[in-house]
């Protein structure tokens, strides 16, 4: 498996780092709690009627990446990057409303899972055909580059997705045009049931970077600080006009591909090994060790997170489903655009 250049050195016990670590643990826990509720409660209750994909085991990637972002940066999260939406400005209630297909939700019930976007927030979600956001991220980055304010575009995708042509065309395009894009590959070692040996024939996907003329790095995707540091290095290059970076973040998907999949194809031993590297426990231990938060403070945080999730679900559930006749509205973006009346 891929190399794991950890980099906890970015941690200093200065005030600012404590604040960052606090944010990290908060979003990690909030994401885990929200997704667990979606997968294990709402879905099982039949309240979520479509497919359910969650990011358990890889929360550190979305959190680490999104927390590097500045005003004007844009992000293209993938189907397991719940945290990115929260960190970049969606409310948890709106996210839940979308999962529940409510009319008063960011997609008005038209879309499911994390197919939720907002131009003002700079959040551009995936579509199901994998890899298709990478070229789009390049286009956004072209605009950012021309604006000249040192902004970046982050784009997330799974290791299985790297096999698609879209990914290649985008990485090459970004390298030729020196675009400020960070290609963030979450290598959770499986694409649905397919292990990495059947997806690619290299030790680490990091080699893909230099093949296009950009740096390629592989980090431990369960180490939120390693991810944060690596994305920051990429950002620094990109903001300085030096072009794109490819980053592989290695972890293991701690769930099935979707809520109906028991992941029997993942060797038991592998599950056990990686369970020990749970990204949340990992950061929690560091925070306790460094005495940034006490055990009690962590428990309070967990309580707060549970309450937030309870409240968001209650809020979302109170919203009605969309009326059927809305189905035929808003196909075209008209001057009187229906969507301009939408919530966010």
């Amino acid at each position, binding site marked *: 498996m891929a190399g794991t250049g950890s980099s906890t050195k970015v941690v200093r016990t200065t005030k600012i780092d404590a604040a960052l670590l606090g944010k990290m643990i908060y979003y990690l826990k909030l994401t885990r709690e929200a997704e667990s509720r979606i997968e294990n409660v709402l879905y099982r209750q039949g309240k979520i*009627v*479509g*497919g359910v994909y969650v990011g358990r085991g890889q929360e550190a990637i979305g959190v680490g990446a999104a927390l590097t972002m500045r005003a004007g940066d844009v992000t293209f999260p993938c189907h397991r990057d719940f945290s990115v939406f929260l960190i970049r400005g969606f409310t948890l209630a709106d996210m839940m409303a979308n999962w529940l*297909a*409510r*009319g008063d939700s960011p*997609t*008005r*019930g*038209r*879309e*499911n*899972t994390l*197919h939720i976007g907002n131009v003002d927030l700079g959040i551009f979600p995936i*579509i*199901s*055909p*994998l890899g298709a956001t990478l070229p789009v991220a390049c286009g956004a980055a072209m605009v950012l580059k021309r604006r000249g304010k040192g902004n970046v575009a982050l784009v997330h995708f799974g290791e*299985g*997705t790297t*096999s*698609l*042509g*879209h990914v290649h065309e985008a990485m090459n395009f970004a390298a030729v045009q020196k675009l400020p894009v960070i290609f963030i590959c979450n290598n959770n070692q499986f*694409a*649905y*049931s*397919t292990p990495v040996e*059947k*997806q*690619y024939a290299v030790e680490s996907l990091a080699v893909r970077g230099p093949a296009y003329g950009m740096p390629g790095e592989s980090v431990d995707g369960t180490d939120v600080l390693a991810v944060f540091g690596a994305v920051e290095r990429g950002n620094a290059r990109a903001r300085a006009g030096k072009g794109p970076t490819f980053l592989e973040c290695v972890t293991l998907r701690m769930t099935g591909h979707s809520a109906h999949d028991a992941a029997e*194809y993942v060797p038991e031993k592998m599950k056990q090994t990686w369970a020990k590297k749970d990204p949340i426990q990992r950061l929690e231990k560091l925070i306790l060790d460094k005495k940034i938060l006490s055990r009690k403070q962590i428990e309070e945080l967990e309580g707060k997170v549970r309450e937030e999730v309870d409240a968001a679900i209650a809020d979302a559930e109170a919203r009605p*489903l*969309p*009326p*059927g*006749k*809305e*189905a*035929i509205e808003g*196909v075209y973006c008209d001057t009187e655009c229906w969507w301009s009346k939408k919530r966010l």
Partner: protein
Amino acid sequence: MPLLTYLEAIRQGLWEEMERDPSVFVIGEDIGVYGGAFKVTAGMLEEFGEDRVIDTPISESAIVGAAIGAALMGMRPVVEMQFMDFIACGFDQIVNMAAKLHYRWGPAVPMVIRGPSGAGVHGGPYHSQSNEMWFVHTPGLKVVAPASAYDAKGLIKSAIRDNNPVIFYEHKFLYRRIKEDVPDQDYVVPIGKAVVRRPGTDISVITYGAMVWTALEAASELEKEGLTLEVVDLRSLLPYDEETVLASTRKCSKVILLHEDTRTGGMGGELAAVIAEKAFEALDGPIVRVTAPDTPVPFAPPLEEYFLPNTQKVMEAARRLAAY
């Protein structure tokens, strides 16, 4: 005869062809160890081995292209698209390579691309599309869309034995919802032949895929009102069975063209044209289309329901047309 679901019938057809002909093999994402997202190929890896049940990287262009290359070398590959929605990622290989090879310099390209399409299962915009018309409009391809378990088995066999690239649309709503007596011996359903599912005299409803069941339901409801619908199941969309379409039109003099696919540029248009050209004199009323509207497939159940044609919509159209 054993009772089989639509899905089991496809598997059985595929299985029998794999047994019959060593040049048949299956290739796609998660079809081996996992048996496919819908388990159509379950058990095949164990039975036929890694050489004939090939798990691939997620790369529709490479998968379709590799199937073409194997077909050119004399094999009969069957590609699974995990969802037919993703066929857009292998599009160039299908429309520009596979479809035109024989016409251009003569080789046989015996291959099948099969997978789940259609809505009704709350799959949202990317797990619900009916995109058959892209291929119906591409000369050199064949396109089939069975509605029954019997036809699914018979057509997958015909598709595999055909010397041309065949796009095989399975309707995911039907996978486990219908169960039929399916002969467990070898039989084929010919490509290009429609079937009259239910005879009638007042209005011909010409349709395919899951909508066949909708039409049949509407027909039994309307019979109570004294209106008899003839239900034509196209089964093949390219080539389609012009003769049966025209015969049914001439018999009923009124026609409803029904499909789950969106309206503009859909199969209904093609059928309307051939009817209005070749059976014009038989027509006793406007040709009516009942289809999905021109939108992506929305996710929320009320939206999806509004989007999809259903028995009510067919009945209303039929009553209006009968009154014409």
